[in-house]
C-alpha cells in the first residue's frame, strides 16, 4: 500500500531523515518508535505534505501513485489521513461543518455526490457515541477550548467518519490520562480492517499495550535501525533506545 524508499528529508537546511525505507501493506498496524529528534514526526508530516520539508532524495508511493507530486488535499482524498499531535484551533468554524466539508470533499474526489444530511447525522452520531463524546462537540468551534484529551478524541472521530485507507497517528497518546487513552485506543482498534493500514508514531511503549502493532520500527537518527514485532516495543521499554543505538554502532 505505502512504499517509502531511501527517503532523505531536509528541514531548514538540516537533514532529518537520512535514507528511510518502509513498506506498509493493507491490513497491517505499524508503530514507529524512537527517541526525541529522531525524525518520527517528520515522516508522517512529509507523507501528509506539510510545507517546509524538502525531499532531497528517495520516493514515497501510495497505491502506485507518486505521493510527492500530489497536493495536500489530494493525498487526503486518496485515503492518506494524518491525526495531529497538536490539533489546530479554528475559531468560528463548527466541528460538524469541518467534518461535513472534509467528507464531501473526499466524496467529490471519488466522483460521489454529497452525503444526504440525515445519513451524515446518523453516521456522525454513531461515531460520536463510540468515542464517548457529547453531541455538543459538533456545535463547538474546531478544537477551540478543547482539553488535550478532547482534541485527541476529536482526531480519532474524524478518522472514524472519514475512513481513510492509511491512518497515520502522530503521538496520539501524548497528554492523555489512562481513561482517555483507552477510548482513543478503542477508536483506533475499531479502524483495524483488512483493507486498511495504520501507522502509529509514538515515543512510549504504553500505547502499544492497547493497540498491539504487527510491526515495530525503531527510528534513530533519521534511519530505521531495527524492525520487529510487538515484542520489540517491550524490549525497548526495558532497555531504552540506548541499547539499540549501541548495537547498531
Amino acid at each position, binding site marked *: 500500500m505505502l512504499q517509502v524508499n531511501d527517503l532523505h528529508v531536509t528541514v531548514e537546511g538540516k537533514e532529518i531523515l537520512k535514507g528511510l525505507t518502509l513498506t506498509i501493506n493493507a491490513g497491517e498496524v505499524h508503530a514507529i518508535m524512537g527517541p526525541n529528534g529522531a525524525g518520527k514526526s517528520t515522516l508522517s508530516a512529509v507523507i501528509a*505534505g506539510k510545507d517546509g520539508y524538502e525531499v532531497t532524495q528517495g520516493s514515497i508511493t501510495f497505491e502506485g501513485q507518486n505521493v510527492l507530486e500530489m*497536493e*495536500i*488535499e489530494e493525498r*487526503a482524498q486518496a485515503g492518506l489521513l494524518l491525526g*495531529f499531535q497538536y490539533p*489546530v484551533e479554528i475559531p*468560528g468554524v463548527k466541528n460538524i461543518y469541518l467534518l461535513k*466539508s472534509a467528507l464531501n470533499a473526499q466524496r467529490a474526489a471519488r466522483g460521489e455526490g454529497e452525503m444526504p444530511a440525515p445519513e451524515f447525522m446518523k453516521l456522525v452520531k454513531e461515531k460520536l457515541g463510540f468515542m464517548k463524546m457529547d453531541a455538543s462537540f459538533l456545535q463547538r468551534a474546531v478544537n477551540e477550548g478543547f482539553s488535550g484529551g478532547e482534541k485527541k478524541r476529536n482526531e480519532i472521530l474524524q478518522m472514524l467518519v472519514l475512513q481513510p485507507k492509511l491512518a497515520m497517528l502522530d503521538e496520539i497518546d501524548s497528554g492523555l490520562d489512562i481513561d482517555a487513552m483507552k477510548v482513543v485506543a478503542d477508536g483506533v482498534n475499531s479502524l483495524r480492517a483488512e483493507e486498511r493500514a495504520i501507522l502509529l508514531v509514538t515515543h512510549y511503549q504504553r500505547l502499544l499495550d492497547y493497540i498491539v502493532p504487527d510491526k515495530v520500527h525503531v527510528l534513530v537518527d533519521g534511519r530505521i535501525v531495527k524492525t520487529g514485532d510487538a515484542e520489540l516495543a517491550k524490549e525497548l521499554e526495558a532497555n531504552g533506545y540506548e541499547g539499540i543505538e549501541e548495537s547498531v554502532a
Partner: protein
Amino acid sequence: MASEEMEQLVRRDYKEGFVTDIESDTLPPGLDENTIAFISNKKGEPEWMLEWRLDAYRQWLKMQEPSWAHLDYPPIDYQAISYFSAPKRPEDRPQSLDEVDPKLLETYEKLGIPLHERAALAGVAVDAVFDSVSVATTFKKQLAEAGVIFCSISEAIRDYPDLIKQYLGTVVPVADNYFAALNSAVFTDGSFVFVPEGVTCPMELSTYFRINAANTGQFERTLIICESRAQVSYLEGCTAPMRDENQLHAAVVELVALDDAYIKYSTVQNWYPGDEDGKGGIYNFVTKRGECRGERARISWTQVETGSAITWKYPSCILRGKDSIGEFYSVAVTNGRQQADTGTKMIHIGEGTRSYIVAKGISAGKSDQSYRGLVKIGPRAKGARNFTQCDSLLIGDKCGAHTFPYQEIGNSTATIEHEATTSKIGEDQLFYCQSRGISEEDAVSMIVNGFCKDVFQELPMEFAVEAEALLNVTLEGAVG
C-alpha cells in the same frame, strides 16, 4: 459648457440667476457658491434649502481636512471635481459587454448576478426594461398603503419640506466634520424614509429598488425617520462591484428613532478598490449617525465593507433616550493596496442605555486596516453598559491591522467590557483543513466565514448569503 458661459455663471449672483436657461447638464470642475446655487436650482429646491447648503459651504471653507485617520493618500483637489454631472450619454458608454473589463465580468459570474443586471452594473448602454421597475411599482403601492414614505431626498425636499426642516442636519449638523459639511453643501442624491407612528414597514427597503436610483450619487444624503413604535429595515448597496467615474465619495446618513422605534441599517459595500497598485479606486469618506431620540429606541448598524481604495467610516449612535440601544456589527475586508480606517462611536447620554459592538477586520495582501471606536458615557447615563468585541484576522505577512479603542467614562455606574483578538490564518490551520481533503481555497473561505459568523447572522438572510459569496471572491488568491 463653454468657458465664457461658465464665467458668466460665476460672476452672476446666485440669488438672481440660475433659475432658467441653463442648457448644459454638467458642471465643469470647481466649487464655489455658484456651483451650489446651480445644484440647488437643478434640483428645483426652495430658497431655504439653498441657504442651508450655502451655510454648510461657508463653514466648510473654514475647516481643515482631517488627518488623524491611519490612511495615506495624495491630497484631494476639491476644485478638480465636477459637482454635478448628468448621467453619461448612451453613445459614450460601452456598447456591449464585449467592451467591458473581462475581470469585472468574471466577478459578476462568480457572484451569480443575472445577465441583464451585469450590463447595467458595468455601465453598458441598455434599452431593456428591468424586472425591478415593475417590482418597484408594486412595492410603492404597498408602502403607500402602510403610510411609509420612501423616495429620493430631492423629492422629499420638494414634497415634504416640513419633515426635512424638522430633521435634516439634526443628527449630523452641517459643520459636523469636513466631509459632512462638503456633503451638506453639494449633495445631489440619496434616500428619504419616513415610517409613521406604530407602523412596521411591510418590507425591507433597498436603494436597489428605489425608482430613479439608477446612478449612485457621489455625494449621497440619506435621512430615515421612525416615529414612535415604528420599525424599518433598510439595505444599502450591492454586492456587485460598481463601476463609478467619481473617485471621491462623501455620503451622509442620518437616522432618527423615537420612542420604542427600531431602525436596522445594513450595508454591503463593494466599490471599485482600484487596480493591483491601488490606482483608480474609490475614496469613501462617509458620516453615518443615528440618534435614539426616544425611550427604548434601538438603532442597529450592520456593515460588510469590501470595496474602495480608501474607507473612512464610523457609523455611530447617540443614545439619548432612556434605555435606548445602539448596535454595530461590522466586517471589513481589505486586500491588495486597500486602506480602511473604520469603527463606530457610541455616545451614551440617557439613563440605562446599552451598546454592543462587534467589529471584525480581515486584512490580506498589502492592505492596511484600523478599527477606531469611541465609547462615551455621559454624566447622566446612569447604569449604561457597553460591550465591545474587536477581532482582526491577518492573511499573509504584508498586511497590517491596528486597533484604536477610545473610552470616555463620565459616570461611575457604567459597565464597559472590551475584548480584542488578533489572529493570523495560520499555515497550520490551512494545512489542517487541507490534510482532511479540503482545498486551500475552500479552507480559506471556511476559516474566514467562521471568523465573520457573528456579524453575518445579523444581516437579512439573502444579504448574508451574498456577503459570504462576496467575501470568497474578494479574498480569492489572497493566500499562496
